[in-house]
């Protein structure tokens, strides 16, 4: 018995010794990924990747974003590309599920070997994929994420991620100023999504000193349950609410508006920019769109119906040629603005394109990039925030948001304790041909 064990011991240690020797002689990996040119670029091409909900509950409306981006990139490509490079966009479907987004981002980075991510959508998905694929350690730029979570603008926490939307804190502060000035003395309620998205707004309302008479939090996902919306309305009724601020996703707006209508309950709705999307509401039920009529809403891009705007005019032309069967709405504007800004950044990074160089140029020159937005861009060496303000408007019977008083009155602020002020920004003219 002992003998066998000793023999075993000897063989085991012999194998281990051989193993150790081989390990020592195994050459270090010949290929060092940090040397030479970055993945996803050649002399004639740039490969970008996006993961977003193309199917699933959150997809209506949002699923137009990758198509809109592609339309703009193709327009740029036919006009010679960026510094001689044509842009291809690889689009993946994550169904708005964070773990799927992680898997898809992994595919984009490891299999498709994209140069950068662009326009990933959703706070939870973006947080998960950024952490899991270690974008910052790998130095992979994540351009213009489609979420207003203020954390993404924090360069320390997300060194390679850039926001494009104003933060939810900014939005909440601007909403708070508007609500306090317009509805002083009324009974006000807040319905909000109980996660980082909604809590970000909650922090903004608190900073701005707006307290509500009633708070109604809901768990993400629960808004689609039949009883949820009815529950909100009965709470609002009991509290005698006159003005209801809703900071949630579109399906929450649908639940709230439809149930209020069904119960014959009248209130002045003030909708956050995420939840006030008529296209998304129409995808649930076209009959719900007129319920938006009279509600207050917020935006930072020109209205999609505003054909006097040079960007909107160009985007409409490009989109009509690329996607003739789709309607042009704010999701399309969002996607095309996203692609537009990405092109501005790639152009500014110059012919000698690297990941580090791209990040650097957005930090140093990003605030001067041309953009369709009606607010200044906030990019700097310390903050990775895009648009920095909102204008207030009213929804018409077709769900179109038009600015109050017939012109865009833009308020701007920061994600901290700074005041909300009237913006003096005038948007520079669009570059020739919108390139």
């Amino acid at each position, binding site marked *: 018995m002992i003998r066998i064990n000793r023999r075993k011991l000897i063989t085991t240690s012999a194998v281990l010794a051989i193993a150790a020797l081989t390990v020592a002689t195994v050459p270090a990996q010949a290929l060092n990924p940090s040397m030479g040119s970055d993945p996803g670029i050649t002399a004639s091409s740039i490969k970008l990747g996006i993961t977003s909900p193309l199917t699933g509950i959150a997809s209506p409306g949002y699923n137009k974003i990758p198509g809109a981006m592609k339309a703009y990139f193709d327009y740029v490509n036919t006009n010679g590309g960026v510094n001689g490079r044509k842009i291809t966009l690889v689009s993946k479907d994550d169904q708005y599920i964070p773990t799927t987004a992680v898997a898809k981002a992994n595919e984009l980075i*490891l299999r498709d070997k994209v140069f950068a991510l662009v326009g990933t959508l959703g706070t939870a998905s973006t947080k*998960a994929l950024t952490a899991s694929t270690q974008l910052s350690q790998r130095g992979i730029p994540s351009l213009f994420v489609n979420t207003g979570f203020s954390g993404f603008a924090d360069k320390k926490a997300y060194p390679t991620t850039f926001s494009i939307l104003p933060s939810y804190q900014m939005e909440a502060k601007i909403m708070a100023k508007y609500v306090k000035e317009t509805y002083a003395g009324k009974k006000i309620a807040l319905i909000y999504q*109980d996660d980082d998205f909604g809590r970000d707004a909650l922090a903004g309302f608190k900073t701005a000193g707006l307290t509500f008479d009633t708070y109604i939090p809901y768990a993400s996902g629960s808004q689609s349950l039949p009883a949820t919306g009815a529950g909100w309305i009965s709470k609002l009724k009991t509290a005698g609410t006159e003005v209801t601020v809703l900071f949630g996703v579109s399906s929450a707006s649908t639940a709230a508006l439809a149930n209020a209508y069904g119960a014959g309950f009248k209130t002045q709705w003030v909708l956050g920019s995420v939840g006030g999307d008529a296209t998304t509401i129409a995808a649930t039920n076209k009959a719900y769109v007129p319920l938006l009529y009279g509600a207050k809403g917020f935006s930072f891009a020109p209205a999609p119906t505003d054909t006097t705007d040079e960007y909107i005019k160009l985007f409409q032309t490009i989109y009509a040629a690329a996607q003739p069967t789709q309607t042009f709405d704010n999701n399309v504007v969002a996607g095309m603005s996203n692609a537009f800004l990405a092109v501005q950044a790639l152009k500014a990074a110059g012919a000698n394109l690297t990941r580090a160089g791209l990040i650097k140029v957005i930090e140093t020159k990003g605030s001067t990039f041309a953009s369709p937005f009606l607010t200044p861009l906030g990019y700097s060496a310390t903050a990775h925030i895009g648009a920095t303000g909102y204008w207030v408007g009213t929804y018409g019977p077709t769900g179109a948001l038009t600015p109050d008083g017939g012109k865009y009155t833009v308020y701007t602020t920061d994600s901290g304790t700074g005041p909300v002020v009237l913006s003096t920004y005038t948007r520079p003219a669009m570059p020739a041909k919108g390139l």
Partner: protein
Amino acid sequence: MLKKHPLLTFIFFGFVLFLISNRLDELRVYQGATVAIYAIGISSLILLIGYSGQVSLGHGALLAIGGYAAALARIHYNAPVWLTFVVAVLAAAAGGALLGLAAARLSGPYLAGSTLALAIGLPSIANQFPILGGEQGLFFDIGLPPASLGADFTQYKWFFWICWSVALIALYWLRNVMNSRYGRSWRAVRSHDVAAELAGIHVGRNKVLAFTISAGLAGLAGALLAMTISLVSPGVFPLALSFSLATGAVLSGVTTLGGVMIGSVALVAIPEFALAIANRYGSETITTNLPGLLVSALLILTVLFVPNGPVEQLRAKRGKNEHPVKKK
């Protein structure tokens, strides 16, 4: 070699894997780590189904317990990585022991049904308690690989090494347990519980013990899974995960540990096939649903044509079938 020198075989296998990890690109290394995780998850099911005769369709829930326990230990107590795995095993084993007490009193479809309910219900508990991070979940960050491994050493290779070291140790240990007196008792219980009881084996106690050990292994797999995607949330442990593991176990053959690699490699390879098919014939949107279809189809085919799994089938052909499962 496996029969005579199991330890050597495991060490040799580990060494081969180590060499492989230096030659593969990052995506394959990442998938390799996933294979190790599935191997642990599937072997825990094989122990349960093939050796103790109990069924679990809700193993995802036990993985979830392990994943959450590991993440909480890391976040709140800054536990070192190896300790988070220990915590995961203990937490899941405790959960498994409780479940096992109930499971020992159930059998067949009733047991399958109650474990299924657990898989559906348990992950959504995370939405009820803020400490569990709700739908968004918690981050589980084990930090960068040690600097001594060199600047080229990627995070995924680090995951690969951790997953396979843990998997090989776990499988070696499990192999020994299954060949021990406990393993024999479990097989006796599975084959004929009355006969086992007459032979002096405490049926209930043995069933609970098997369930507990199986749950501990599942918890370990859960912690590794959470580690490789840096996240625990209800979405990480969907019902589909439980079904995948059960399918993996059937593909591997539930009566022997020998085929465990077949099932785990298949589970990782199927989405790859799906992607290749989708790229050729369809759009991105079908890649999301195609793997599920392929997994189910493979499950049905296996049950129809090789009910005891490919390894057992080969042994039967060579006339060395050691523990045949009675067809009912």
